[in-house]
């Protein structure tokens, strides 16, 4: 450290209590021109802390000082006025409005009282280019984008205007390496401009790489604040969890059978083009690709959420053309959606309601729900997945992001389908729980279940999968067997389709 860092914001004794305390006695300083990495298990209080700083939540106790003055924002707007901005863990875009409108929602340019679309789009374009969305029309409704792209829009929105402190709450959870690199470039640029940044992530290698200082929360308390140079990833994990975490995965003792799901020349618009592959019984098949490469679209076709234009699917040798997710589920296919907030959870309802939703028949007789059976099912899964909550009747919206993800997983584990399509199954889940979930997935495959796993985290796929297929611009461009893959080859394949389309478009 050459110069003494300049303190921007200081927290003293910050605490937050709902029914029980979730944050206690946090003293922390944010310095100008510095990235503070914030780590902690699911439910440790990271989002709560950042929401307090960002003005979305009032602390129960403690004080904050911004450049020496008292700081107590009543709402997000007030915080933003001082240049404190944040990118929330859950997307908060308006899906019917365009990218440009979402970016400038607070200050839409007007001419004679009417929306000035031209100026709006002109302002949006450079901003979109900064996060690698330059290929898109700023007038496209956000709802039509994939969730990764939506995340980039959300990040771009955080970059607008004068910004002195930027909190990024798990911005990379849905991003692949390419988008993450763009994000990092923006972060480094902001840091050089003297902005103070807080970076929250469960990808600890990212924190290690990016952060100048690392702060660690455990059970709502700050247990460690140190220079990043003094901490290795293992140290971070130990401080987070308070013990060693196993990072071995036992994939032995599985027998992989014949093909259970065969996909031939499946197409839908530009999103999925002529995709063929087969999934074998008991196999874990990974799907890699960039954000927007068509992986989610492909799974939605298999699950009956969308309809194919052409192509054929065989399930256990028989033609399979689900017209609705219901038919797919009845045929033994489950899909865990990447967007848990919009497409997965009933947020205001109880954990137990969410867990039994896809399998209500098992906790009811003649349409009559057995509430005690339901609660005990929920209790069992809460224990199995270590969901941090007060009990099965707690509303899902009160859970931390990672714990919400576990509820989505619990629902489909309970449904017990033969084929599981898992779209970003570990999104937002902390490192300890992540290995437990890998273990669960391995156990499923050991029992003969067949799994397709989409992940933006290539390391995750390489750890878990028997084969990895790579999609690029809607096409399945390569499939690698375990042992025959390497990261570079997969990345090259992931880019290949995009290069081709651009060169075609140029030609």
């Amino acid at each position, binding site marked *: 450290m050459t110069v003494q860092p300049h303190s921007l914001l200081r927290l003293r004794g910050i605490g937050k209590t*709902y*029914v029980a305390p979730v944050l206690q006695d946090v003293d922390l300083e944010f310095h100008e021109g510095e990235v503070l990495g914030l780590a902690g298990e699911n439910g440790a209080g990271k989002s709560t802390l950042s929401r307090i700083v960002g003005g979305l939540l*009032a602390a129960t106790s403690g004080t904050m000082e911004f450049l020496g003055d008292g700081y107590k924002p009543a709402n997000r707007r007030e915080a933003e006025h001082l240049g404190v901005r944040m990118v929330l863990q859950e997307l908060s875009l308006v899906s019917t409005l365009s990218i440009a409108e979402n970016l400038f929602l607070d200050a839409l340019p007007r001419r004679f009282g009417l929306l000035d679309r031209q100026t709006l789009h002109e302002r949006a374009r450079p901003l979109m280019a900064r996060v690698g969305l330059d290929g898109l029309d700023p007038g496209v409704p956000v709802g039509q984008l994939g969730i990764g792209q939506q995340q980039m829009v959300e990040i771009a929105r955080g970059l607008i205007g004068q910004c002195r402190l930027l909190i990024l709450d798990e911005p990379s959870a849905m991003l692949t390496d390419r988008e993450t690199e763009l994000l990092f470039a923006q972060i480094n640029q902001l840091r050089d401009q003297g902005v103070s940044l807080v970076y929250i992530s469960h990808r600890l290698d990212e924190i290690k790489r990016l952060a100048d200082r690392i702060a660690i929360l455990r059970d709502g308390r700050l247990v460690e604040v140190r220079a990043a140079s003094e901490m290795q990833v293992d140290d971070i994990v130990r401080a987070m969890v308070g013990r060693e975490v196993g990072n071995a995965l036992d994939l032995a003792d599985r027998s992989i059978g014949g093909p259970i799901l065969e996909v031939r020349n499946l197409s839908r618009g530009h999103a999925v083009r002529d995709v063929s592959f087969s999934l074998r019984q008991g196999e874990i098949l990974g799907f890699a690709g960039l954000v927007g490469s068509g992986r989610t679209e492909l799974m939605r076709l298999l*699950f009956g*959420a969308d309809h194919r234009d052409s192509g054929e699917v065989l399930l256990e040798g028989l033609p399979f053309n689900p017209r*609705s*997710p*219901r038919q*797919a*589920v*009845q045929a033994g296919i489950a*899909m865990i*959606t990447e967007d848990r907030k*919009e*497409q*997965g*959870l*009933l*947020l*205001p*309802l*109880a954990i137990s*309601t969410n867990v039994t*939703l*896809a*399998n*209500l*028949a*098992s*906790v*009811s007789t003649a*349409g*009559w*729900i*057995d*509430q*005690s*059976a*339901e*609660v*005990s*099912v*929920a*209790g*069992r899964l*809460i*224990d*199995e997945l270590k969901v941090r909550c*007060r*009990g*099965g*009747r*707690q*509303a899902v919206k009160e859970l931390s992001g990672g714990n919400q993800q576990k509820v989505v997983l619990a*629902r489909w*584990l*309970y*449904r*017990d389908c033969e084929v599981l399509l898992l779209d970003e199954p570990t999104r937002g889940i902390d490192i300890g729980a992540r290995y437990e979930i890998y273990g669960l997935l391995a156990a499923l495959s050991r029992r003969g279940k067949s799994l397709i796993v989409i992940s933006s985290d290539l390391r995750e796929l390489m750890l878990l999968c028997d084969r990895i297929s790579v999609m690029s611009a809607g096409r399945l461009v390569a499939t690698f067997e375990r042992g025959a893959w390497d990261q570079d080859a997969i990345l090259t394949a992931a880019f290949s389709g995009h290069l081709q389309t651009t060169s075609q478009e140029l030609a």
Partner: protein
Amino acid sequence: MVPSATSHSTPLTSRPRMGQLTRYFGLLGVLVAMCALFGVLSEHFLTMASFSTIANQIPALAVMAVGMTFVLIIGGIDLSVGSVLAFSGAVMSVAIVQWELGLFPGIILALATGILCGAFTGAISVSFKIPSFIVSLGMLEMARGGAYSATGSRTEYIGGNISMINDPLIGKISPAFLLAVAIVVLGHILLNRTVFGRHLIGIGTNEEAMRLAGINTHPPKIVVFMLMGLLSAIGALFQVARMEAADPNAGAGMELSVIAAVVIGGTSLMGGRGSVLASFFGVLIIAVLESGLAQIGASEPTKRIITGIVIITAVVLDMYRSRRANRE
């Protein structure tokens, strides 16, 4: 992970239920306060006579509020209920008086008419993805037209034995009142204890998430509108029995009272949140308000202004309550 229910105990909190209970107590408090207020303002209000008048008005409103609670919970709205009531009543009178089919076939036809109207609204709005607000607005006109053409725009006297539904049974309580209370209880159980009710709440909360959980969301939605139609027809039965006649103008504007009662009970217009029992309290509040205002001799304009104020205050208070619960 065999889908079976093993006994297992995790600490439970009953916070959602506590929330419901405080809501019921709040509504009960409002009701008691209103009775006390009218009792002070008018010496006649706290008499048996005025209560039996109220009890007579309640049944139709109460059963329709049950249906409307379901409709609002799935995020819909049904504006046609008053007209469907009139149309069903008209069909009943025609069947009994002109076709001489007798009382029970007449009642069955009336109920069938209600169900068909609801099925039409539901099916069109669900399959063409048109907001139920618009489809039911169309149904409001169509059913009213049907009522006029069936009765030849005149009040059709049925007379005789239909009034038994409304004749006092025990003390001053009519079979209609008992039936209405039974329907409220059944509705409450249906919503809270059955798979169907669970599906409705889920659909109102996040329909896409329900679809992706492998649930076919269209049939329950249509069934809700059919139920609404059926309950409107039962409302017609109560009204016809009370007047011993079918009036083609019956139920005009009634959709607004029904929706007001349900909303006072705290059911959300955004869907996903609501309670049949609370709607019943809303019905009581509306009924007490109406008859109380009549008792103290309030003029029509004053009545309407006060009713409006009560509706808005109730909803604002409920918003305030739930928002505070959220922030805690």
